[in-house]
């Protein structure tokens, strides 16, 4: 767990839940100390509807949850592990 840093998540697809069943799925471009997120290529899902919104900043106060797919997280961790192994 300690091995992964925020920078490792840059470029990963995050599933960000906001209020009222609104979900933003996008690639993490930047995050600051207040956990405001900047996502690119954002797809918005509300109910069964979906649309593209491009580059979207998501303030921390609007974020209900941030999720990532299990395989992606596994890849991130594996890459990190491999990288650390190479350094050693």
């Amino acid at each position, binding site marked *: 767990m300690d091995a992964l840093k925020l920078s490792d998540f840059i470029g990963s697809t995050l599933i960000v839940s906001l209020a009222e069943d609104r979900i933003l799925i996008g690639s993490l471009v930047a995050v600051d100390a207040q956990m405001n997120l900047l996502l690119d290529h954002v797809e918005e899902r509300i109910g069964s509807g979906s649309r593209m919104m491009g580059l*979207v900043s998501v303030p921390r106060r609007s974020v209900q949850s941030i999720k990532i797919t299990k395989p992606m997280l596994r890849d991130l*961790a594996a890459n990190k592990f491999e990288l650390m192994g190479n350094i050693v």
Partner: protein
Amino acid sequence: MEVDRILGSLSITDDFDQLVDVTCFFDELCSKLKPETIVKDPRFDLFEGTHSLEADNSKLDSSLIELTDEELEFDLNVAHESPLSSVTAIADRLLRCVISWLNEYQTLPTTVLSCRYTECLLSSLIKGTSSGPFWNTGDALYDEVLGSCVLGVCYLAKFVHRLLSAGIVFEEEDLNFNSMRLNAFNNLPDQDVVIKSLINSLQLLETYSDESLHLVMLKHTLKITLCLVHLEDHLTNYSTETMHLDELIENANSVNSMLPQLQLSPPSGSFSTYIQKHRSNQFPPRQITEPPTDYGGFIILAEDIKTVLLVNEAKSALETYQFANIFNKLKQRHVIARILFPLIFIRDDRTILGKFSFTDFYSLHIKEFSAQTPSEPSSALGGELIQESSNILLEWYQNSSQNTCRYRQGFNRQLILWDSLQAQFESVSSKIYCFWTYFMKLSIMIEFSLKGFDLEIYKPFEAYSMFWYVYYLSSHLVDLLNECQKEIESNISAIHSMNKKIKKLKAGEKKDQLRFKYRFAMDNEMDQLQTTKQFLNYLLKEANITKSLCLIEVFQFGILKSFHVIDNKNDTPLKFSDERLIHELRFKPFNSIGVPELPEHEAFQKSLKDFTIDREESSFDTRLKALSSFIEEEVQNVNKSIDEIISCIKAGDNNGVLVTGTGLVQELSVEYYSKLKLTSKAIAINSKVIMSTLKKDTDHKDYKVELVHATKGWNYYPIQTLRVKENRRK
């Protein structure tokens, strides 16, 4: 092992067993960052981030758009009450949205795409329905008539997209085509299908016995749509037929006279921000545009395209040159006309107007300017150089249809190109090419400099330097044109002297040969020589007008400086700069120009000193009076020259005095010179006002100078107007 350890430490939600909640993990990691830290993709520029939308910010998040119940429940498959008036109102508003989009530079989603029927039609096209009906109300007015109208408008949008894709104008600046990812325009049926659909609708309306104005209005809207669908003919077939443009004007005029008598109100929800909330949208929410109240925009569109089509009638390079010079100069033409001009002029088959190859067209300019048939420069570079020159010339033509700001920017880029071209021609000693290239370069330098006054780029204190520099440029232009004129005169004399020689020679072979040579020259060269001579006469008059007006402006500045009302430097002290740096920055575009060399900053300063009168001088009043008389005289000369030009424009190019090449843009040219004359008169009046005010009032510190455009005048020469500083009023 490490992977499992990481995963094990995170909670996997029950609902999405493939998703891992990392909120707390992110919170924890972020809390360890310094407050000012931003973790970002190294390739990402945070400046780009300023263009992002912000979730849950009502000004930036289109998801938060609040729709009314009517908008939410709007059903396209329902025929609303009073179908005739409803359909007429929808079609009318949609057409006015087109005007708003194309004439008033509004966005597509806030105009045409705000119509629910347009959105529906485009969605249907994505799904594969291309022939309609796109909605099914059971009422022919909705399903067929409105359907064909919306189809026609979408077809126009497809044409506009094609124009935009040509890369002539700038998206967002000249035209918006945010289609909200409704990229269905290519699925639209062919033009003949759309036309047929509109004609069928018109025929259907003929069967209606209703005699209301709504029916008449609806027929007009369909006819207007039909004309709009035909616009692409001017590009697809390079059609010069103006029948549909005339019909467009006629129908728009009829609608304009009817509109005040009609109460048109489209059904609630039929025009809405709905699309911005529900379709892919990378932009902040925007209110839908309130379209114009009449169809005047279509008249402008049609008139401007008709003007552009006139270029097809050009008989010489002089005419195309003058056309490009003037057609977009007095007012910015409709964006469609501005895009069409270069596309019609420089065709896909790599010809100019379907008549000349690029290089032949280029040679035509040289020929008409020098009255000599150019041969390629002998150097090995020749062919390439001619090719390069013709490309630069075509770029000049393209630039003429740019919007008013890009027009000047385009010339900035062209300065270096023409300068380098001139240097290359000099290296291969090609006089006629050099002359013409130098002429073009000087004209562009003058245009670029003076256009800055129109765009209000210069501060009043910069007026002196700019006008003095243009005076300097126009002096060079006058010298060049005189030299060209001498060449022409000498060629004309050479032909005439042949005749004298013939008379002196005894009959024989030598005499016959000379007579043949003389006749050939008279039949094939004299006309062009006379035309060029008269064109150069015109250009000389024009250059002298520029020179005089700039000199008058320079004198006015000198007078103002003599009274200490203004100086050619910023009166606010600058911490990080000085007057020389600011001056050099302003003249940076000319810094690399070889000929004429940019004078040093000191030369500008010295010249201003020469134009300024020392107030302590005993002859101050006498010199001021002399200046005033000089300005008056110079203005009279300018006005006389303008009058001569105007009368020659009106008389056509066979007037025997001046060839202006303005046959295709006669009215516009007269308007331009009339504006110039008005400005010249306004400058003369201003001189008197300046002198009388400043002589009367001794406290000149209370005055400042503003650059004011004369009403209905020509903005290249603003009036250096005296204004009382605001604090005086307090």
